[in-house]
């Protein structure tokens, strides 16, 4: 008890030294703990999103690019498949196809053109407003709402794909009709629109003033279509009827298609239909792709663990040296204590009490920090994954 009393008095008086030692020791303990928690959570999050997506249809190419584009709305741009592929899945009766078109962005957030089935499939409840109902509307993720300070009643404008995209794809102004509840997933950082709205942004569908009016027809005048014809940049109840699509919908693009098979048998049959290596599309199991990615990341983690261990050893050696020098500096105090009748064991207990107190404080701080990390890990990992995308 006396040893603890004296140790506490010493640590409190030399608070700056104690603070440095506690901070360094806490960091040594905290960093590997936090890394482990975040990596484990990342591993779970990465695999969980993959496992929650049964099958993914896309054009043949990098499976990882396709998975990242469809699951994390990343900047990877796999070649699109046509809606004919979606119709084929529908017609097979083996599963539900959910198309995703992720070619465009607004204010740095990916615009995801999809169908209402996507919200049911991912289980995304609304925090405000309502779901998509009319062409041109947008429902935004929680992070988009927070970052842009926008909500129901505000509008978003799609960004041009690149600097040279000036020849006809007009930015579309989209009213926000709903905000999703936070899901700690990439859905938080997405702007959802109907896939037809995505095609309008791409210029496949558009609305404009009538080129031929009833008066023209009555007077027998020729129809005139040129640059003076006003194209609508916002879809409103007044102009929605003028919006139309040229060509067959079967040929319209989708970046990827989530396929939800009816059962295992249906999944197996569907997979078999896309095994032809000369085919233009592929049907993949995103969970397998994510597991492969996680395996690769965790091979790198072994290296990180080694680096952390080396740094921790070096820091521990530095702490040990600091404590040793501190004890050397206190040689006269030890001599005084012995002269006054203390046992050498008492002096050792005093020094041990100081070391244990320091390490206990450091351990407590590290565990507290780890608890904070653990509590928020899912949200932070979700944010990090969305950031990475």
């Amino acid at each position, binding site marked *: 008890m*006396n040893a603890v*009393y*004296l140790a506490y*008095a*010493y640590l*409190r*008086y*030399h608070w700056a030294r104690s603070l440095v030692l506690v901070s360094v020791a806490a960091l040594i303990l905290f960093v590997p703990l936090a890394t482990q928690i975040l990596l484990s959570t990342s591993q779970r999050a990465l695999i969980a999103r993959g496992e929650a997506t049964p099958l993914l249809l896309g054009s043949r190419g990098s499976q990882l690019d396709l998975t990242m584009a469809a699951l994390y709305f990343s900047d990877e741009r796999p070649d699109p498949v046509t809606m004919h592929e979606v119709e084929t899945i529908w017609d097979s009766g083996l599963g539900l196809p959910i198309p995703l078109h992720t070619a465009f962005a607004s204010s740095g957030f990916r615009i995801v053109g999809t169908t209402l089935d996507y919200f049911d499939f991912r289980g995304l409840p609304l925090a405000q407003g309502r779901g998509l109902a009319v062409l041109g509307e947008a429902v935004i993720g929680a992070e988009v709402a927070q970052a842009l300070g926008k909500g129901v009643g505000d509008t978003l404008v799609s960004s041009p794909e690149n600097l040279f995209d000036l020849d006809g794809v007009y930015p579309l102004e989209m009213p926000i009709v709903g905000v999703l509840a936070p899901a700690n997933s990439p859905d938080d950082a997405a702007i959802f629109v109907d896939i037809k709205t995505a095609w309008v942004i791409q210029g496949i569908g558009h609305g404009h003033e009538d080129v031929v009016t009833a008066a023209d027809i009555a007077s027998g005048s020729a129809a005139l279509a040129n640059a003076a014809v006003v194209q609508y940049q916002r879809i409103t109840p007044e102009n929605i009827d003028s919006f139309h699509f040229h060509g067959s919908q079967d040929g319209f693009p989708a970046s990827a298609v989530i396929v939800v098979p009816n059962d295992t048998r249906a999944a197996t049959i569907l997979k078999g239909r896309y095994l032809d290596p000369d085919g233009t599309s592929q049907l993949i199991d995103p969970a397998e792709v994510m597991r492969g990615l996680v395996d690769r990341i965790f091979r790198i983690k072994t290296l990180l663990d080694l680096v952390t261990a080396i740094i921790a050893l070096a820091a521990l050696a530095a702490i040990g040296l600091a404590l040793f020098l501190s004890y050397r500096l206190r040689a*006269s*105090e030890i001599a*005084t*204590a*012995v*002269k*006054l*009748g*203390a*046992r050498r064991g*008492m*002096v050792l207990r*005093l020094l041990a009490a100081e070391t244990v107190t320091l390490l206990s404080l450091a351990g407590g701080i590290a565990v507290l920090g780890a608890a904070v990390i653990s509590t928020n890990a899912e949200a932070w990992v979700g944010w990090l994954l969305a950031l990475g995308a």
Partner: protein
Amino acid sequence: MVEVENITFGYAAGGFRLRVPHLSLADGERLAIVGPSGSGKTTLLNLIAGILTPETGRITVAGTEVSALPDAGRRRFRASRIGFVFQDFALLDYLTARQNILYPYRITPALKLDAAARARADALARACGIGDKLDRHPAALSQGEQQRVAICRALVTQPRLVLSDEATGNLDPESKARILDLLFAQAAEAGASVLAVTHDHELLPRFQRVLDFATYREPVS
């Protein structure tokens, strides 16, 4: 109070051998030991305190033969019967004056820190003129005040013998006499004898007896 009979002592590393045929100190007596550096004055204090053990001879303090006690017994005896005052005060910078005075109670189970001990510490501090500075750390005290704290620490355990090793060596000339008088007064109040090593010859008249230690040193054989 103290009887030293025919003791000899030598350090393993060599240097010198100490031989003291006879030395006695009466109850309440104040004895000064003078002598050149390295003549063994501090060694004799350590032998009497039981920190060192003589090779031959006998040391008796307050009726206890210290030289015959085992190590643990000598520690207990030292904690309860002997007070130390050092030249460098030997205060702990991280403890307040009050905590420094009570320090012996914190480091040995031979002493029990109770209300009486705390009251004694406060009373000693008041008597030494530092009653209002008990919550200060040594860094906030003058050298004279620090030595007063050291005197309180030496006397708080009610020792029978106070060993003073150059207790005034670090003080200015004006403070030396004052501190020594204070030590004597408080020791007398407690009924303790004082055995002091000093180089200050101007202080010697304040002692009842002076022992020139040069005569006790033997050449290295």
